[in-house]
């Protein structure tokens, strides 16, 4: 905490007994890796940055396209054609000049994931494909870091936080699934809800509020009926990645 300005900036959340001055300092010392700057990543990074998470390391390989703008709220019409990392860094730095925004314009893969995540306390899934999620899940297991997963499709979304040793991993659930043949239709507000819930999970991880995490639970949102349902998850001894450990 630097000064009175910080006290004012964060006073509404520092009033929470779970945060307070110590918690705010803890957030300021934290570093989070966010993979992907699409619909989910836009919301996740915005809320983490606004909450005072000290350092965000972000990776995305894409440039902004006009078809992104219905849901990727960090990117605006003037950004079409720019790297998403450049667009995001500009907005996030304007939102909170004290945040360290480290961007990597690249594709996340098994060859670079460990280096990208090094020094971070949480891995967040803002990706749009199974392949990258599998890489991030492997990295979460290897580096013993929580992996906050989110996914969206049309009116629906799902969220879970995979904590190595405490919960199943992403592959426990989805190792037999194949990649969809085409990108799903997506409503921007669904990305907003799911990304917000992911950012809340990240903040809880950083504050050490581990008991209330979506750990061992998969939350499903059906936006059309506004129904939220929770599915209990057990470890999968047949998992090719964690073997149910």
């Amino acid at each position, binding site marked *: 905490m630097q000064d009175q300005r910080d006290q004012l900036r964060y006073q509404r959340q520092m009033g929470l007994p779970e945060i307070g001055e110590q918690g705010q300092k803890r957030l300021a010392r934290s570093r989070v890796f966010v993979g992907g700057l699409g619909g989910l990543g836009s919301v996740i990074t915005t809320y983490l940055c606004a909450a005072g998470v000290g350092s965000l390391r972000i990776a995305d390989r894409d440039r902004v396209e006009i078809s992104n703008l219905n849901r990727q709220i960090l990117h605006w019409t003037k950004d079409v054609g720019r790297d998403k990392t450049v667009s995001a860094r500009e907005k996030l730095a304007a939102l909170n000049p004290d945040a360290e925004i480290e961007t990597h314009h690249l594709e996340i893969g098994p060859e670079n994931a460990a280096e990208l995540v090094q020094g971070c306390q949480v891995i967040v899934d803002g990706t749009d494909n199974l392949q990258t999620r599998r890489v991030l899940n492997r990295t979460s297991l290897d580096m013993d870091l929580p992996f906050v997963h989110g996914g969206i499709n049309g009116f629906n979304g799902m969220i879970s936080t995979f904590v190595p040793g405490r919960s199943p991993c992403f592959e426990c*659930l989805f190792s037999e699934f194949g990649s969809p043949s085409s990108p799903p239709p997506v409503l921007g507000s669904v990305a907003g809800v799911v990304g917000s819930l992911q950012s809340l999970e990240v903040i809880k991880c950083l504050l050490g509020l581990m008991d209330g995490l979506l750990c061992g639970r998969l939350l499903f949102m059906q936006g059309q009926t506004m129904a939220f*349902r929770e*599915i209990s998850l057990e470890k999968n001894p047949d998992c090719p990645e964690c073997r149910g450990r």
Partner: protein
Amino acid sequence: MWISMEQYEESGMKNTVTITLNGFQEEVAQGSTVSSLIKYFQELDKDLIVEHNGRFVYPGEYPRTVVDDGDRLEFINPNFGG
């Protein structure tokens, strides 16, 4: 071994259970497993999440997960967009 409702009816057997599948009540043959119900209800998408009474069912458990009267079953398409 699972047999269809039609086969049950033809054989004169009356043993059925009522489950809630994707929010709708369905009468299915007693002893039906998740595997047999996926075939019976023609769930063609192989990438399917199955929830049985609030619990995630792994594909390896489908053949041995038997539904009982009053059970809730959900076939869910996963959401992998971002």
